[in-house]
């Protein structure tokens, strides 16, 4: 089984978000980048398929040279090879087109992407790849088993979950649940050394157009001070929630 894990390179969850150039550009100053958390779950599940079912695992990112440390980290975790499509990730559609192009060219049985990336929160790349490559698609996937060419997946639905059966080639939008938090791997020294020897191929982009453009950013307005209520005066809290906030 050939697996491709799509890796989005995103600001660490603790990052302060700021903008420059008249609020038109994300300020990367001092920002640490990581593997998108949803992709980390997917990558770990891919490692399981590699170790238990002999799968090969490639990772891919659409982005500039600055994303290579993130791909190297994925190699250190255990992926066999990395691919970087050398272009700025303009929007979800453009990224999906670049990825679909590579997937068609190289052929993968299973493509694991994340439910959404935590920077632009598009939640669109995996579904778009599935539509562009005509593969089966399960979003918000929280469990995946593969047997030959059949797959059983669990999908999160509002208020519960759903088990579906499907077949390869398959694309999933993964998230936590795919593996447990405690199963996530931190690259060890040996992994990091080995990652240096593994191939990281840079391929040129097909120049896919973006369909959307983020033209300006804005930060939420700062909140006023909290209204404190004494634990001995909870009637007041009920009163405030009813009469002032009007939420109960």
């Amino acid at each position, binding site marked *: 089984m050939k697996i491709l894990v799509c890796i989005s390179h995103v600001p660490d*969850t*603790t990052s302060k*978000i700021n903008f420059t150039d008249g609020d038109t550009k994300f300020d990367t100053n001092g920002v640490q980048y990581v593997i998108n*958390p*949803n992709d980390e779950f997917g990558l770990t599940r891919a490692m399981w398929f590699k170790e238990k079912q002999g799968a090969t695992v490639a990772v891919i990112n659409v982005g500039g040279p600055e994303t290579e440390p993130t791909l190297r980290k994925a190699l250190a975790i255990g992926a066999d090879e990395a691919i970087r499509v050398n272009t700025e990730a303009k929007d*979800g*559609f453009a990224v999906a087109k670049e990825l679909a192009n590579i997937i068609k060219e190289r052929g993968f049985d299973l493509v694991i992407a994340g439910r959404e990336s*935590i*920077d*632009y*929160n*598009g*939640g*669109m790349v995996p*579904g*778009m790849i599935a*539509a562009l490559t005509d593969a*089966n*698609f*399960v*979003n*918000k996937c*929280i469990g995946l088993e593969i047997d030959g060419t059949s797959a059983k997946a669990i*999908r999160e*639905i*509002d*208020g*519960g*979950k*759903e*088990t*579906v*059966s*499907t077949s390869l080639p398959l694309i999933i939008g993964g998230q936590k649940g795919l593996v447990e938090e405690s199963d996530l791997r931190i690259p060890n020294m040996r992994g990091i050394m080995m990652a240096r020897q593994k191939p990281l191929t840079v391929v040129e982009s097909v120049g896919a157009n*973006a*369909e*959307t*453009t983020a*033209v*300006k*950013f*804005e*930060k*939420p307005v700062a*909140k*006023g001070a*909290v*209204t*404190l*209520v004494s*634990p001995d005066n*909870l009637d007041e*809290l*009920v009163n*405030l*929630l*009813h009469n002032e*906030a009007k*939420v*109960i």
Partner: protein
Amino acid sequence: MSVLVYIESDRGKFKKSALEVASYGKAVANQLGTSLTAVTFNANDASELGKYGVDKVLNVSNTDGFNAKVYADVIKQAAATEGSKVVVVSSTSDSTYLAPLLAVGLDAGYASNVVDAPTSISPFTVKRTAFTNKAFSFTEINTEVKIVGVSNNSFGLVETSGNASMESFSPSLASSDVKVESVDKASDKVSIADAEIVVSAGRGLKGPENWEMIEELAEVLGAATACSKPVSDLGWRPHSEHVGQTGKPVAANLYIAIGISGAIQHLAGINASKVKVVINIDPEAPFFKAADYGVVGDAFDVVPKLIEKLKAFKAQNA
């Protein structure tokens, strides 16, 4: 030319998020000077949709329940029939599943997590959340057909006094190789996505055995229950309750955080909620900076008392 909205229902009832999508669609239709058409599956009575601005309902029957590929293809056909240039969906699990498929099918740009009516029609610009609620992004959709995914509880419900006519719609149904085997859904509980009020608790509760009072508080308020990440990682509560940047987003009217410190990753996911209440023993807990109302106190003392007060309030206002 009509604006098209995809209206979801659950066990024969339109979802609240769907009525919000209708309200949003109506606002866009007004901006464009056109009418509003809804596409629904297996609806019996569309009159409620008229109240939220829908002029015409295309009702599809005889489907075997939700399938993203099949439904996306039906919506695509409805958009073609109506000549729609704008299609509006919600942020439910089903809508976010089918929207990217629809986007490819219609060659349409798609903006998700949209929180307000378009700020401009030409270029078509929407305000959406980005960086997991740490910022907003004004995004232009540059394609001829546009798909807008409305964030839950952001636009609100807007009633008008219209009437919706119902037409049956018989599109061709695509085949799909994704088949539902079983569904596991608590029928008696409000889901976090649909809830107007969410009661959430963290590691401050000390152990899973102490969640009874959290569930009771949620029940009194008709709220969904949620938890912080460590609580689900420890297995105290199911993963489906984990909210935050890496869990579920919450955009409730009221979010009550009990024994949750207010880490940046937690706040990012729940910040879109309108009113936030924190109950925490530590006055220095960062959550107090993010909350509207706060009680500095021991949850084991405050929560049972609050339950009693709310019960009394409800009895009075019943």
